[in-house]
């Protein structure tokens, strides 16, 4: 897909397949093309060139209504009508989606808003609006969820509840596409990650695959009871990025290929070896490596 806004190329040749029942994380800096991609996947704006289909049905085709009913969408910074109550808001969207209005109250309960159902939305906090937005996205038991920064404004408790609902949906093989700027938050919760950079699909794969492909140095911290020189001697011949030592603690930076060799040789220290901590690069590091 390509998408031009006037002269600006917002999405630059992205080809992406989301598998049924998977949770795909979409990451990238602001302006990387995430929201444009979302809007195209929803059929809100057509790609300049390219085609998007869901279950081999084009999102712009004649069956768009049926398709939209099977999709839940939570936009970034969701905005509702201040003059409606939470329940009325949900009922309004339920009518548009053609689902039963009596499912609205149970949904509000599910996202923890039942107590505020009859309060007007203009009195809602950011977190409550976000919960209402999530309830809206869940209307009509969608098969596919597009969630743009869904945990913005939620407190840690809210974030936990959000992911527990998401987990439940996942077990019902609902397909989820999610963006987040808190990478450490989504890295344990998505099966695959797509990294967007300047409108291009920069990387695509599982968290593990991405880590391996960028080959960021690992950090190995060693506490030992032998002289520094002995440690240096043991590690002789291995290409390390860095080796620093202080107070019987050594910090080794090396690449993945050297990891096992380093650990084997450390093992030969025997009893002198007190502790080893291996620090893998975080998704943030991967993200920065790719998109930074």
């Amino acid at each position, binding site marked *: 897909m390509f998408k031009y806004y006037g002269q600006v190329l917002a999405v630059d040749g992205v080809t992406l397949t989301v598998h049924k029942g998977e949770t795909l994380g979409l990451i990238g800096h602001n302006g990387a093309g995430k929201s444009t991609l979302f*809007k195209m996947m*929803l059929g*809100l704006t057509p790609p300049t060139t390219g085609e998007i289909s869901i279950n081999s049905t084009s999102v712009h085709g*004649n069956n*768009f*209504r*049926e398709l*939209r*009913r099977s*999709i839940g*969408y939570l*936009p970034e*910074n*969701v*905005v*509702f*009508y201040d*003059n409606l109550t939470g329940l009325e808001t949900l009922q*309004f*969207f339920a*009518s*548009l*989606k*053609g689902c039963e209005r009596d499912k609205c109250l149970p949904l509000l309960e599910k996202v923890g808003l039942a107590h505020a159902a009859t309060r007007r939305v203009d009195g809602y906090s950011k977190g409550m609006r976000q919960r209402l937005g999530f309830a*809206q996205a869940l209307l009509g038991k969608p098969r596919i969820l597009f969630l743009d920064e869904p945990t913005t404004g939620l407190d840690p408790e809210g974030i936990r509840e959000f992911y527990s609902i998401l987990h439940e949906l996942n077990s019902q093989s609902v397909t989820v596409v999610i963006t987040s700027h808190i990478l450490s938050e989504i890295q344990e919760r998505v099966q695959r990650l797509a990294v967007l950079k300047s409108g291009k699909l920069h990387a695509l794969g599982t968290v593990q695959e991405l880590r391996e492909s960028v080959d960021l140095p690992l950090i190995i911290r060693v506490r030992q009871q032998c002289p520094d020189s002995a440690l240096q001697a043991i590690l002789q011949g291995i290409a390390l990025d860095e080796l620093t030592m202080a107070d019987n603690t050594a910090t080794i930076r090396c690449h993945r290929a050297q990891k096992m060799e380093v650990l084997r040789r450390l093992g030969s220290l025997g009893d002198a070896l007190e502790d080893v901590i291996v620090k893998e690069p975080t998704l943030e590091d991967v993200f920065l490596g790719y998109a930074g």
Partner: protein
Amino acid sequence: MLNIEISQIKVIAAKEFRDRIRNRWVIAVAIIFTAFALAIAYFGSAQQGEVGLRNIEVTIASLVSLVIYLIPLIALILGYDAIVGERERGSLDLLLSMPITRLELLLGKFLGLSAALASATLAGFGLVGLLLAYQIDINALYHYIGFMVSAILLGMVFLSLAVMVSVISKDRARASGGAISVWFLFVLVYDLLLLGILVLSGGSFGEELFPLLLLLNPADIFRILNIFSMEDIKVFYGLATVFPTSLSSPWLLGSVMITWIIMPLTVALWRFK
């Protein structure tokens, strides 16, 4: 292929209408209409040296002069925000992600707002009509009903123009500017221009063309629709008196009004991407 679901239009229209009932817009506008209409009905004959609820024809003529300024203004204020407001607040994307087409959204907004304006018009002027009813004949009552129907049509034309302005405008500030420009153009400037041309050309300026030019202004059509029934008070109506009877069939004029409702909505749909 036209793919329209009436139910979706109804959902949007019902929300717009209910919003205007709830924030007391309908009742406020109805009260304004009632107050003006009562004042005009009571003092409208003052020129003839009398006050009181007497001459229905003079009352309608005075009401027409009032409504021609007031209803376009109210309709434009009501409608300019319809789309650009949702876009600026950020609720439009979510709305468009629903199983709804842009045509349905536009029609729903337009019809819901029309219902609000029509309710206010019917309630406001209808109340005065009831007060007058006991002392006017069936023919005058017929004219009064015609006046209310044409007032509603006039409101719908300017709502349609407002929705068009709302779709085209980048932000709400521009939309309100656009709405006010539309009001100035059709309610004030257009007739002055025509009058100027008529005077400058010494009245020789195409007798054929002139009535057609009047049809290009919905406010003038409204005036014409409410005049020909009342021969004796044509003097109140200014420019519209040069209108030939051949073109004055209410059905023809009504159709032109409806065309005036459809055209801006069509432009709005075309520009609504």
